[in-house]
């Protein structure tokens, strides 16, 4: 019927693309992704429409704000990144185990590493597409409601930062999913991590005054105030140091390359750091988390024995 094709570099890429297609079709046809997209776009629409509606009701017209879009570029925030990561990654590997589709998949002449990379790349493409549409929608909607916008050319930085922020959670979800082989455990486990870090570490650092801990855990991070040279030291724009604020900080750094950030506990000044240092550190922290958790997920898949 057919002739065998030799295994070469080209051939591996060709097979890799088969996994990408397999995974993307799954993402596109999965109702959960569609549901979340609808929710995200509904919220974005609401963020534009609500001020207009309320303005009409209370007779306060919406003022033009040329920085609205770039300042609310990371509108999705930490919860948004986390939810998108859950939806795109929770079934990616564990779902194959649960449904039994892992058996025919892993008995094809394609290595588990390629399967893993293909699934990861497909997740990346889906997130890239979602964020691209989302930010485009934000830019268009923001321009309509708040007038012409400044610095829209920096939106790709927000996009890049959002992808990195989301991938921290994607890697955590994939690792838990690969180890547990359960989508529910992946979602709940990641939610536990998110909640634990958001609440537990947050409360601990607030009580102990050791805010530096927040620089090194996934999430929003510690909160500081950018020095503006005007007003009180804690009255400038808020800067967060965590992996969830990379996009926002990229834009801020681009606009204020020499910016410094003051940190406080209660009203007491703690220390000052440059924005460049904060951003570099959050990128390294994100990189370390992504590398470690993706390695765990890959290793668990590679070593998995499928008896059922």
């Amino acid at each position, binding site marked *: *019927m*057919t*002739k*065998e*094709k*030799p*295994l070469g570099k080209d*051939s591996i890429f*060709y*097979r890799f*693309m*088969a*996994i990408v*297609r*397999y995974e993307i*079709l*799954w993402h596109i*046809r*999965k109702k959960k992704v569609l549901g979340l997209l609808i929710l995200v776009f509904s919220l974005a629409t609401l963020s534009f429409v609500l001020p207009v509606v309320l303005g009409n009701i209370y007779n306060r017209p919406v003022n033009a704000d040329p920085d609205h879009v770039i300042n609310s570029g990371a509108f999705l925030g930490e919860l948004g990144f986390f939810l998108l990561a859950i939806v795109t990654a929770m079934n990616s590997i564990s779902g194959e185990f649960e*449904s*039994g*589709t892992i*058996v*025919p998949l*892993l*008995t*094809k*002449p*394609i*290595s*588990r590493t390629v399967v893993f990379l293909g699934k990861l790349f497909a997740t990346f493409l889906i997130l890239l597409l979602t964020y691209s549409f989302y930010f485009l929608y934000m830019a268009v909607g923001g321009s309509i409601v708040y007038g012409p916008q400044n610095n829209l050319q920096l939106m790709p930085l927000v996009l890049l930062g959002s992808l990195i922020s989301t991938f921290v959670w994607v890697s955590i979800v994939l690792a838990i999913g690969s180890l547990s082989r359960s989508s529910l455990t992946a979602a709940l486990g990641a939610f536990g991590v998110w909640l634990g870090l958001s609440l537990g570490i947050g409360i601990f650092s607030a009580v102990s005054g050791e805010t530096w801990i927040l620089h090194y855990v996934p999430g929003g991070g510690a909160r500081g105030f950018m020095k503006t040279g005007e007003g009180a030291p804690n009255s400038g724009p808020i800067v967060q140091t965590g992996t969830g604020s990379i996009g926002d900080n990229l834009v801020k750094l681009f606009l204020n390359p020499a910016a410094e950030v003051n940190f406080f506990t209660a009203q007491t000044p703690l220390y000052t750091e440059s924005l460049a240092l904060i951003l570099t550190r959050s990128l390294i922290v994100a990189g370390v988390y992504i590398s470690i958790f993706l390695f765990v997920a890959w290793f668990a898949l*590679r070593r998995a*024995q*499928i*008896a059922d």
Partner: protein
Amino acid sequence: MEFAIETNGLTKSFGAIKAVDNLNLCVSSNSIHGFLGPNGAGKSTTIKILVGLLRADSGRAKILGADVKGDDPRTRQKVGYLPELPKFPKHLTGQELLEIYGQMYGMSRSQLKTVVPKLLETVGLTGRGKSRIGSYSKGMQQRLGIAQALLSDPELLILDEPSIGLDPVGMVEVRDLIKSIASHGRTILLSSHMLYEVEQICTHVTIINHGVSLASGPIEEVTKHLSGKTSIEMEIVNMKDSIEEAIRRMPFVSSLTRRGRHLSIQLQTKDDVRTQISQLITSNGGIIVHMAQHGNDLESVFLQLVSRSEEQTK
């Protein structure tokens, strides 16, 4: 002799349970090899080691001359595998699944354009290729499973219970398909609960229980060497005393019981002597309505070996 599959001292345990125990399995090239055993005998575990889903604790396994060492795509390139009750992604259509799996085998798009419709036709899924797998019945999923196993025209085909979920017509079609594939010089390892199916299409057989091989070889040899006493049950119209006496005098007959036109003949041989007996009856004016030999068939041998193995385990 060249073997398509060769295992040597293959052992696999799950906790305290030894699923495969020092198994030596040899599947000759270009044969249809039946792999028989009761539930939990270790058939599927052995197969999963062969296709790389499980790692053996000890021992060696070779497929088409290459050592099976965990995740090795090169070995799997020449192997088609139908898992027991296969599960496929419900969001894909049958055609998409075959195209994607074909791409994983390195088949070009032009090859797939020709091969996929042909395979769908072969397994009786013409017209359903564009339907989502989620809408397929169990039988249709089984047929799709067979199609994906045949995608790359593999040198070795491993089929784990291929007839499960199929209707009687489907079972016959699958048997004919297996025979046709084997006739093109392919090797087939067929794990099945259906002894009749194995007897019908296999040239060789291995019977295992508790992970241990109980018997292995060409089917005739296994049944001939291992069967116990055999008997023939007959129904004859125009039955006469002279026929009964003539049968009793045959050298391989040890005893005979007659109830009206029904005869039960106990034999001292494991050979198939139905031709000699039927010739004798017809030459004496009897008409054979029914004739069946028991004891040297695969089912008898299988039951005998398994019960012996169960007694030894106790």
